[in-house]
């Protein structure tokens, strides 16, 4: 490591003794970062696998740094040193900029980052401008937005960068203000002296700039001093969102990138055999290009599928041209499959063997070892056994799959709201026959993601079309594509077997084995190496899925010997599947909690007490008690109305949901034109503990959204598979929660901080809400539902839209049809 890059920390900011103890004998943690050569103040920290390097891990100053923090390559020159840093810049106008290597699709991560920076630097949140970074392969696996891990992973690095920046501003201000740096404080974007004089960041941005890039060490503001973190902060883009000025991918002004849509096969992963009227369609009004493209998720992965793309002046003309195409289609990947055949195969699959379990009692393959000595004391046991079926679910967002691509002259420039831009970039390079360096991926803000944008489907489509025709394209999936070709949460069954001792009043064992249509986790989980391994023949995709299952599945209660099993049918890419918000827990937890209620009933216990007495985790207990008290558990309710409660631990957080469901005929059968009414969740109380809530207002929003999704999962939200494709062709067919289903009352309690670090929130509530609503429904009707959503019936309650031509034509009666829908099916009560 060249010595010139290892300049000593400036004395005025650094403790003389690097192991100086601080308050209460606690050693203050110190972190490494960089001051970056730039015209105004710029600082950076390296994002490593385990976030940011702690200086305290080092036994002595600089010389040993490289032993734990390999800078040998990075410090060859200052440009390279900054290559894999995330940076905070103080601009000449005193605002602060940060480009976050994450996606923002509504979960609020940019706002969270702004809060962290504002807290550490002493600047207003509104003066922090957070943008989304392009694909940056040098960040390796540190640029993905999934598993609700964003907040957890940026918490320390972003604060370290902000703290370094603050330190530099304070030093620069010390000279101007004629005061010791130690005496200065920062607030509202100014540095203040003890005497009361102050200087704004704007006047310090250049003075504090660095001419060489070098390491620096800083400490962080103590948790006890936080004034911004933990208070409600509105979204950074709320004004843009409500004025229509927020730019999503399809709103970007990219010259000549004309609207492009796709004619897709009538069955899943079908292929084009021939296009019979190409010339005719090419002359349709507005149409500029018609071209056949591969729609393989990746080249050489085994499944081939293709489609025909149309580029035109407007999307309306794309839709008309797509529908005018006369295409001879080859077969698809699953043409003989329907819900019934899948269910048969799921049931016929071997019961999954035991996975490593949270309790040590499962060493025997497949069976819980009931005949152990321990059972001598238990006396006679009784068993409960139940299979639960969960049908296909869509994770479609309101903004469809979208991408703009300009692939010309050996370069590709792509705009797409990817949750994992590095993988998008490398896949684009692969399908385009380029190196990743030739591919630029910009990440606009997304209109929802929910796991769907972990895949690069639209980006690959757009790039292929653009490369083929040599023109820029603005490609959007039609809503029908979203339903029929979009990635789904796979159908699965969950088999639960529990034994209990009536004599002891205790649960003796709890087994839960899930068998699912394979989930494609290849893009999304683990690092890219794991992904590659998952694609090998005879592969480990099963292992990958099982790993994901084990990383997320849990039983929060003491239920005796606990055993999990998970297996899959089919290859991982037979169906287009993927990670859907809250993964397995949207099935696993409701099945489990319904059985927990059954056990409570058999043992004569109140569902709330039963749970509170069996949670081991203190935080889980506290959130349960909070919803019990705030949600008025056990209050008098009319017949047909009931409460259900569950607790769930995940993403370093704990959430309890108490839901109240009204199944009385007057409610369930109420008529709203064109609406699927049915039972109504009247009231929901959520208590959530994520350790340290950075922005309670945003955290509550995530809980509320999770509740809405849970309601959909229980009652109406599903896809019907028939003869190789899904019948749903739009919203309304796919019955996600609507205003008429939403609970009129929802109360989210954010627990006081239980730790000094934040946990994830984006997915936390989904499985829990699904389970709580299911439990409440079961108690309200006095019968446990075993198939979800409850409204998933063989006879679909809507008119199935055509598969050929593939897109439903746009109506023409929009002037008279509002607010009555012109295309909705009849009202439908899922419980009837």
């Amino acid at each position: 490591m060249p010595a010139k890059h290892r300049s000593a920390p400036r004395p005025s900011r650094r403790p003389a003794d690097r192991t100086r103890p601080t308050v209460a004998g606690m050693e203050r943690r110190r972190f490494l970062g960089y001051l970056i050569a730039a015209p105004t103040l710029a600082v950076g920290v390296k994002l490593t696998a385990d976030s940011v390097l702690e200086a305290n891990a080092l036994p002595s100053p600089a010389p040993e740094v490289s032993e734990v923090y390999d800078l040998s390559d990075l410090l060859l020159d200052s440009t390279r040193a900054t290559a894999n840093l995330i940076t905070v810049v103080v601009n000449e106008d005193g605002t602060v900029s940060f480009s976050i290597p994450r996606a923002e699709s509504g979960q609020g991560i940019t706002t969270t980052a702004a809060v962290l920076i504002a807290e550490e630097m002493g600047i207003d949140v509104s003066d922090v401008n957070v943008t989304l970074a392009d694909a940056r392969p040098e960040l390796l696996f540190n640029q993905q937005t999934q598993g609700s891990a964003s907040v957890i992973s940026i918490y320390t690095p972003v604060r370290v960068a902000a703290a370094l920046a603050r330190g530099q501003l304070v030093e620069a201000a010390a000279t101007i203000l004629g005061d010791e740096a130690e005496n200065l404080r920062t607030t509202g974007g100014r540095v203040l002296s003890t005497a009361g004089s102050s200087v704004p960041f704007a006047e310090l941005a250049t003075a504090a700039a660095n001419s060489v890039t070098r390491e620096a060490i800083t400490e962080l503001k103590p948790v006890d001093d936080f004034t911004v973190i933990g208070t409600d902060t509105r979204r950074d883009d709320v004004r843009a969102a409500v004025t229509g000025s927020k730019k999503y991918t399809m709103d970007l002004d990219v010259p000549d990138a004309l609207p492009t849509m796709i004619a897709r096969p009538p069955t899943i992963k079908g292929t084009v055999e021939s296009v019979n009227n190409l010339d005719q369609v090419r002359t349709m009004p507005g149409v500029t290009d018609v071209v056949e493209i591969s729609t393989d998720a990746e080249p050489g992965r085994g499944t081939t599928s293709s489609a025909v793309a149309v580029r035109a002046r407007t999307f309306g003309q794309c839709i008309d041209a797509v529908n005018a195409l006369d295409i001879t289609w080859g077969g698809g990947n699953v043409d003989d499959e329907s819900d019934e055949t899948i269910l048969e195969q799921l049931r016929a699959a071997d019961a999954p063997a035991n996975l490593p379990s949270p309790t040590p009692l499962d060493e025997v393959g497949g069976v819980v070892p009931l005949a152990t000595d321990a059972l001598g004391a238990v006396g006679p046991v009784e068993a409960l056994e139940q299979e639960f079926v969960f049908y296909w679910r869509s994770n479609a967002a309101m903004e469809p799959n979208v991408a703009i691509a300009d692939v010309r002259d050996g370069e590709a420039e792509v705009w797409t709201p990817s949750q994992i831009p590095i993988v998008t970039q490398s896949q684009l390079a692969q399908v385009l026959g380029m190196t990743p360096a030739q591919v630029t991926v910009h990440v606009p803000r997304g209109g929802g993601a929910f796991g769907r944008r972990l895949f690069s489907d639209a980006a690959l489509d757009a790039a292929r079309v653009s490369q083929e025709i040599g023109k820029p394209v603005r490609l959007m999936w039609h809503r029908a594509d979203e339903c029929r070709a979009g990635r789904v949460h796979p159908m699965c069954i969950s088999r639960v077997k529990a034994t209990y001792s009536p004599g002891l009043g205790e649960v003796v064992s709890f087994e839960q084995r899930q068998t699912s249509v394979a989930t494609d986790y290849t893009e999304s989980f683990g690092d890219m190496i794991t992904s590659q391994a998952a694609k090998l023949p005879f592969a480990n995709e099963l292992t990958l899925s099982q790993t994901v299952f084990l990383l997320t599945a849990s039983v929060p209660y003491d239920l005796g010997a606990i055993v999990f099993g998970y297996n899959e049918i089919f290859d991982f890419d037979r169906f287009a599947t993927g990670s859907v918000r809250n993964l397995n827990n949207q099935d696993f937890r409701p099945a489990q909690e319904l059985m927990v209620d059954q056990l409570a009933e058999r043992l004569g216990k109140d569902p709330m007490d039963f749970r509170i007495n069996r949670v081991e985790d203190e935080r889980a207990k506290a959130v349960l008690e909070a919803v019990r008290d705030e949600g008025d558990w056990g209050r008098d309710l009319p017949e047909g109305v009931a409460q259900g409660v569950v607790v769930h631990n995940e993403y370093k957080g704990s959430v309890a949901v108490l839901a109240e469901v009204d199944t009385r005929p007057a409610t369930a059968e109420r008529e709203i034109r064109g609406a699927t009414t049915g039972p109504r969740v009247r009231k929901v109380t959520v208590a959530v503990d994520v350790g340290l809530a950075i922005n309670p207002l945003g955290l509550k929003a995530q809980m509320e959204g999770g509740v809405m999704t849970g309601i959909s999962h229980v009652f109406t939200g599903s896809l019907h598979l028939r003869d190789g494709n899904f019948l749903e062709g739009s919203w309304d067919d796919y019955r996600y929660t609507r205003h008429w289903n939403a609970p009129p009352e929802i109360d989210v309690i954010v627990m006081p901080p239980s730790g000094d670090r934040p946990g994830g929130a984006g997915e936390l509530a989904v499985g829990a809400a699904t389970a709580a609503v299911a439990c409440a429904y079961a108690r309200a009707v006095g019968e446990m539902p075993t198939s979800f959503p409850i409204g998933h019936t063989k006879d679909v309650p809507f008119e199935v839209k055509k598969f050929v031509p593939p897109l439903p034509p746009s109506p023409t009666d929009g002037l008279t049809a509002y607010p009555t829908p012109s295309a909705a099916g009849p009202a439908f009560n899922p419980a009837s």
Partner: protein
Amino acid sequence: MPPRTFKVNGRPVTVDIEDDVRLLWVLRDVLGITGPKYGCGINVCKACTSHINGRAFNPCSVPVSAIQPTDEVTTIEGLPDTVGADLHPMQEAWIDRDVPQCGYCQPGQIMAAVDLVKKVEADGGSITDDDIDEIRNMCACGTYSRIREAIKQGAENM
């Protein structure tokens, strides 16, 4: 296909496009007015909700030929001007309640809410939960409870 002239957000526009192209695409792809969003194209999701002569409608389902020269189309971008302010009270309420998550559905939600409140008030009533229950606008992020609060708040200031 003669050029068509009408008013959008208070300004006259002229477009030269086939008669049957739906207004949503004329707004977005021809005029570059991107506030109204595409969510379904068949008048079920209501993401594109805008106003024509002060009433809500869904431009994804209206051919441009159905728009008369005297018609005034208002998109979310033009909503504040209808009250001569920087923001419409409904937008203020939306900001105050921090309603949006991804925000994609929100222009449509706001345009639908303004119309609903006007309609209810024209009928001599004030907005109720039952009225709000009938709004068709989809939100896949699940912001419904904040929308409900914001509509009530916005209605008070309209």
